[in-house]
């Protein structure tokens, strides 16, 4: 169904990433030289998880004539911000810098992307917010970047990928969570892989669609890693958003993890309440993709009941990825109060920085659609 309200908060929007030459003005002399001399500036830095021509990467009517995804500022306004009458949208930069093995080069490019984001998008369009791109495999450099960018409160989140070098609950990553908690930034984990390990537990699938399907299992593993390692006990104010994760797998996760935890809780004694309670307090999920049968909306409604809370879902278009057609960004059959929560209340509750006074007048209950 269409968005029935003004003032929604789109928690997953993907602007096209700049070319390396467009980043050069934001890089220091050393890296500008390196990237040019080594012809690194000719690389597109496209993540393998999102090949530009794949149907998943851009909806056909959101492509330009050349076939490239149209996600420049004009297109973002036309196809996403205006079309869905959003109050604001969070830009999640999917940039290949995070798949580099050279931590310093990755960090330099991440910094360039963040500065580019601030001046080319956030300065130009007041409805936009962004996630901070960090080299997640180097917590030290990631924290340095968070500290550098955090004073700009239009950055509301730190972005990590669902498939990376090690599971995100491991203690090596904790400085990232400490910095995020300190600065009121959520941790956003987005679908995608740096392909440090095979996407499945028995190796490398043949087809891209298998890699994409496997993303939900990757999120399940990451969620359990964060819970089992005690991240939410160590960082009680931390919020984690699973982005483009799908969410219909969550009930099984809650049921299975609660049960197993009852049997093996002595192994993880810091877990002080059931995993389901921890997740419902600390973890949120963006709406798209809705992995449920469109023809049978009652299955999705039952699944939402299985999730046990209407505070878990955050509106997202996933623009320009092809997750829905026309204006049908919301699944059919959602109760009205659930829609308002998904569109507005839950995102505001999740992102402390979206509650800043500077954010303006988003109404908790939304205004009726007048279009």
């Amino acid at each position, binding site marked *: 169904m269409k968005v029935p309200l003004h003032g929604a908060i789109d928690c997953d929007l993907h602007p096209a990433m700049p070319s390396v030459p467009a980043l050069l003005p934001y890089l220091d002399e050393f890296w500008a030289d390196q990237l040019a001399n080594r012809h690194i500036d000719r690389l597109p830095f496209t993540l393998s998880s999102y090949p530009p021509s794949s149907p998943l990467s851009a909806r056909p009517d959101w492509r330009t004539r050349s076939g490239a995804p149209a996600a420049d500022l004009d297109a973002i306004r036309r196809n996403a911000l205006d079309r869905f009458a959003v109050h604001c949208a969070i830009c999640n930069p999917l940039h290949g810098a995070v798949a580099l093995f050279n931590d310093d080069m990755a960090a330099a490019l991440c910094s360039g992307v963040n500065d580019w984001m601030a001046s080319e998008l956030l300065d130009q369009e007041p409805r936009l917010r962004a996630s901070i791109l960090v080299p997640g495999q180097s917590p030290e450099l990631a924290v340095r970047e968070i500290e550098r960018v955090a004073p700009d409160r239009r950055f509301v989140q730190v972005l990590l990928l669902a498939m990376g070098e090690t599971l995100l609950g491991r203690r090596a990553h904790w400085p990232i969570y400490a910095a995020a908690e300190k600065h009121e930034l959520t941790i956003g984990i987005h679908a995608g892989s740096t392909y440090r390990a095979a996407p499945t537990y028995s190796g490398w699938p043949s087809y891209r669609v298998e890699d994409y399907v*496997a993303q939900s299992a990757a999120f399940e593993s990451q969620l359990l890693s964060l819970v089992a390692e005690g991240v939410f006990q160590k960082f009680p104010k931390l919020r984690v958003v699973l982005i483009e994760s*799908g969410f219909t797998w969550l009930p099984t996760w809650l049921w299975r993890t609660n049960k197993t935890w009852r049997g093996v809780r002595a*192994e993880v004694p810091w877990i002080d309440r059931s995993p389901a309670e921890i997740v419902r307090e600390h973890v949120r999920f963006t709406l798209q993709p809705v992995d449920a049968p469109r023809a049978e909306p009652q299955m999705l409604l039952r699944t939402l009941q299985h999730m046990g809370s209407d505070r878990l879902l955050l509106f997202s278009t996933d623009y320009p990825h092809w997750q829905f057609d026309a204006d049908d960004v919301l699944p059919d059959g959602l109760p009205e109060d659930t829609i308002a929560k998904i569109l507005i209340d839950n995102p505001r509750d999740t992102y402390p920085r979206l509650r800043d006074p500077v954010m303006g007048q988003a109404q908790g209950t939304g205004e009726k659609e007048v279009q």
Partner: protein
Amino acid sequence: MNIAVRQAPATQRLKIVDCDIHPVYRTPAELHPFMSARWREHMATFGTHFRHGLHGQLPYPRMMAAGMRLDSFPENGPPGSDLDLMRRQHLDANGVEVGMLIALSRGGMEERNLDFGAALSSAINDWQLECWVKKEPRLRAAIVVPQENADYAVAEIERRAGDPAFVQVMISPRSSDPLGHRRYWPIYAAAERCGKPLALHVAGYSGGHASTSSGWPTYYIQEHYAMSTGMQNTLTSLVFEGVLERFPKLKVVMIEGGFAWVPALSWRMDKHWERMRAETPHLRRPPSEYVRERVWFTTQPIEEPENPEHLSDIMEWLGWDRLMFSTDYPHWDFDDPRQVFQGRLTDAQKTRLFRDNAKALYGLQ
């Protein structure tokens, strides 16, 4: 769990088929009669050769009694090694009419030396026959084959094909490549030819790939969960790589991976197949249809919602004819048939889950 469980004979009227019972040998010498001198010597000198760092041990130590029910230890040997105790404690006490043996360890599935793996598989199949099925008519065996050695696997399947003691073909889903890959197709062709289902029981480490797409987890609670994500990976592979399309009579049984995830995974596969279908033109139908028609799931370790009725939704969506009860005896997370289903089930539904679905699949009288 390590609490006293009843040992008196079952009082329930419904006899059950248990689709997951784990027999083990008391000592490796039990296999010697079924191995040549060359391989007996190899086993004694070099032992098995697996892809993990604590050979013959548990890199994720279990929380109690090495993962076994405390009450399942016989006077000598490990749990699952004593047929009399298994009869007394499980087959009789729980009213098991038919029990499916899932001979996991040292069956050659995990062995890196492929010739040794072949010898081990053959030995473990003879051992299942001589030491278990011939002594206890309620038990049935699975043909254990090492999936990385397809030529041998096919020969072993053909050698056992006519023996009704073997009701299914078992390979490890922790393979070197995803099970949908072509290198494993001869195994599926052989299973299809002999009309026996393909049994896939969760496994720990054999293929050498990390159990998550971001490397190895830290704790056993995670390793235990990886059985569920792993089975999702395996099912996705069998669907998208075209195994279920190419072998239309092949039936697949997924054992101990849970089942509540099946509807959500099917929805996800359908949704993204629809977008990406040009990549896999060999699929002629939505993924969910292959799953619905060709894949069976065992119930243990059953997922436990806060509201038990929620699991009934899942069973409804998955299909009442595709779930088969299992206990995982003698492992710690054993499901007791008296307590396993917390939601309201009709007698007809119970009969299907506990008995009739398995009887229909395996052609049991």
